[in-house]
């Protein structure tokens, strides 16, 4: 295990923002810490970075306790939601920033080559002389990522790296980030409130709420077995009924007498095709993909069963 948090507690003015958090992250993997805003997930990231003192517990990296190691000696890199590029420096100088620090300085040509390589990696070759103020949000995040990777961090810390972007860009960039991290073999800790972002980028998942880590493990394990109803909802499951969590739209019309009985409320068109709305007493309204089947008339009694692909067991 590379990064290990053991019983980490952080308090602001005596009020704990993170309680007794324990996590493990093996080398080369990406861990997503998923939680709503104010849940303590950013505090967790800041504690790992060394920006917040620990009230209790330890953070170790490769077996070495990081207590007392200042931020700039940890060899981590930090990337924020809005990039936090240095506005007075060009894109190239932003990316070169860690390469020009004492101790890392190398030949000018080597620095330039490395910067070009990094900009190429994030798909921004030719942007070297632009100023951050002239870039779009997505471009800024790419530069921030290149800058963070420039110092070959032992651990990359990403604080909601894509949340400020619009949906289409976010989905595209999430895939890119995953590719870039895997290519670079970077160990990374990502903090986000967006479950799609977490799934797209991470190998492992930790669920945080009310200042505590409630569940952690590989994405597959956590996704298949949320610990409780709230965890399931955090993971994007829309319905929870008798021990099962079902994703929105993960239903089928049942041919036989199985499943839930409800009443057809007509067809809605959605971004992923037409859906039949079915009102089930006690559960609410479900969306059922029609998959080419004829729509039952409004008011008709229908039976639905969950699609096994969209079901998890608590």
């Amino acid at each position, binding site marked *: 295990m590379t990064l290990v948090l053991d019983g980490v507690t952080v308090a602001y003015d005596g009020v704990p923002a993170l309680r007794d958090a324990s996590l493990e992250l093996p080398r080369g993997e990406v861990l997503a810490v998923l939680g709503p805003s104010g849940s303590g997930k950013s505090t967790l990231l800041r504690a790992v970075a060394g920006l917040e003192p620990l009230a209790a517990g330890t953070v170790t990296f490769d077996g070495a306790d990081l207590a007392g190691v200042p931020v*700039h000696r940890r*060899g981590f890199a*930090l*990337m*924020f939601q809005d990039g*936090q590029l240095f506005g007075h420096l060009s894109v190239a100088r932003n990316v070169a920033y860690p390469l020009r620090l004492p101790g890392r300085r190398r030949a000018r040509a080597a620095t330039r080559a490395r910067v070009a390589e990094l900009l190429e990696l994030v798909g921004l070759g030719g942007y070297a002389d632009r100023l951050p103020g002239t870039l779009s949000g997505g471009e800024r995040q790419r530069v921030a990522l290149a800058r963070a990777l420039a110092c070959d961090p032992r651990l990359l810390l990403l604080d909601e790296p894509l949340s400020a972007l619009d949906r289409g860009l976010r989905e595209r960039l999430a895939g890119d980030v995953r590719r870039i991290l895997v290519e670079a073999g970077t160990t990374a800790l990502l903090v986000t409130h967006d479950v799609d972002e977490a799934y797209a980028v991470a190998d492992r998942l930790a669920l945080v709420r009310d200042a505590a880590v409630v569940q952690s493990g590989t994405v597959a394990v956590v996704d298949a077995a949320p610990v409780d109803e709230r965890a399931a909802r955090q993971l994007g499951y829309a319905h929870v009924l008798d021990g099962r969590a079902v994703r929105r739209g993960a239903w089928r019309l049942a041919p036989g007498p199985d499943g839930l009985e409800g009443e057809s409320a007509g067809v809605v068109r959605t971004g992923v095709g037409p859906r039949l709305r079915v009102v089930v007493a006690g559960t609410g309204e479900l969306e059922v993909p029609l998959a080419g089947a004829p729509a039952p008339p409004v008011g008709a009694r229908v039976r639905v069963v969950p699609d096994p692909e969209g079901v998890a067991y608590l």
Partner: protein
Amino acid sequence: MAGPGRVVAPRWPALAALAALPLAVLLVFFVLPVGAMLLRGLAPDGHLDLGAALEVLGRDRTRRVLWFTLWSAGLGTLLALLLGLPAAYALHRLAFPGAALLRALVLVPFVLPTVVVGAAFRALLGEGGWLAFLGWDGTPAAIVAALVFFNVAVVVRVVGGAWASLDRRAEEAAAALGASPARVLATVTLPALRTAITSAAVVVFLFCSTAFGVVLTLGGLRHATVETEIYLLTRAFDLPAAACLALVQVVTVVLLLLLVGRLRPAEETVDRAPVAPRGVRRGDLPALGATLLVAAGLVVPMAALVVASLQVRGTWTLGNFRALQQPDVSTALVVPVTEALRNSLQVAVDATWMALLLGVLVSLVVTRRARGRGERVVRRVLDGFFMLPLGVSAVVLGFGLLVTVARPPLALRDEPLLVPLVQALVALPLVVRTLVPVLAGIDDRQRQAAASLGASPARTLLVVDLPVVWRPLLAAGGFAFAVSLGEFGATSFLSRPDHPTLPVVIGRLLGSPGQVGEQSNAGMAMAAAVVLAVCVTVVMLLVERLRVPSLGEV
């Protein structure tokens, strides 16, 4: 409705209506007198005579004066920055017990009357003072020390305001990338504060190079700056020389103000979310040390002043204060001090409402988002124009008024509102600079939202602008009041002899080193300075209670 402009339709008439009054006032009571003063010197017989002016510049004494002004102001600026920057950091980024008190304390000298500071440094450095052994009394060192005393406050306010709202995460990102704290400071923090630091430096240099009361009380005739030299020359009726120096000063000031204007970004786009101060860490100790040094530097002269005011020949007494009530004790004292104080307060009340009225109009003119290029240019030119009183010598203004508005056909000399009006002009830049950042910070979409819901322009002002602006407005009023209470340069020319304000009384007492029996004029000056300082401090503490985030960039 196209574009992000304001919703009110006719724009030019509205702009003209808002700008008319301040423009008229500034033209009659500022441009006219200053222009007349310059003209009188440069073209004494009606036609331009540059030879006389050039001759003045060639004089040995003039060169000495210019050189002294330059280096004393430069050194003062440098020291104010060196002390002010760490203090700005400690007072606006750190949370520690007493921080609020220190912030208020550092603010006080900003509006402390120059004559009070002059008196305080005399008390500290002069005969029998705590630091008399330094031998600084009457030397340039005393003048520079007093300039720094004043202007550390400017640095702390201007830079501290910017620092307080600087997003900490850029620094954190740099630290995480491996930059040491010193490196983060040099490569991230200071560049981000560059605009604020440069504006502060320019403004401090401006204040230092046009300082009047301090230099006059501490330097006397020996160490004159351009400002005091103009004063002495007008007193000696060498008008060409005075006008020539005034011209040099005006040109320098305009150039510096243009520089500040260029530094300010065209449209404020910086995110100004205040960042919560954090606890003190080990690395902050040098900054805290510098802050304590600043605090000591501010407290010690004032303490020396109080002590000196309470002593007559080494014994504790209230004699100095009692003597202030008896005009017959000293020839320098025309009226009892209570009457001078009443004059001062009366003038300050009038000056305050005038400064607020003009300041609000100017701020509205300057902050409304311009729609076209032409309009933007006009608004920026007006902005610069209304800042002129910031740097143009109060002495030039005072003397100019004396030879223009105070004479027929206007003959306003005995008009009781003349002195307040002039003081309002002196305070105007401060008022505008307090209001503009706040008004500019209001998202114009709020006004659009209000208008789209059916609010009239007046109603929009009431529901959108007023709730945000009323505190800064009160604070600006406080600043104007304090500035007026302490104004000395222009007032010393214009106040009627039988109707002096408190600073004028102090100036007179300090300027005439006499002794009547046990009672020295200097001792009475200290006592009067204490009275004035108490008044101003009370006003400033009230202002600080309003917690206006910052004075904005001057």
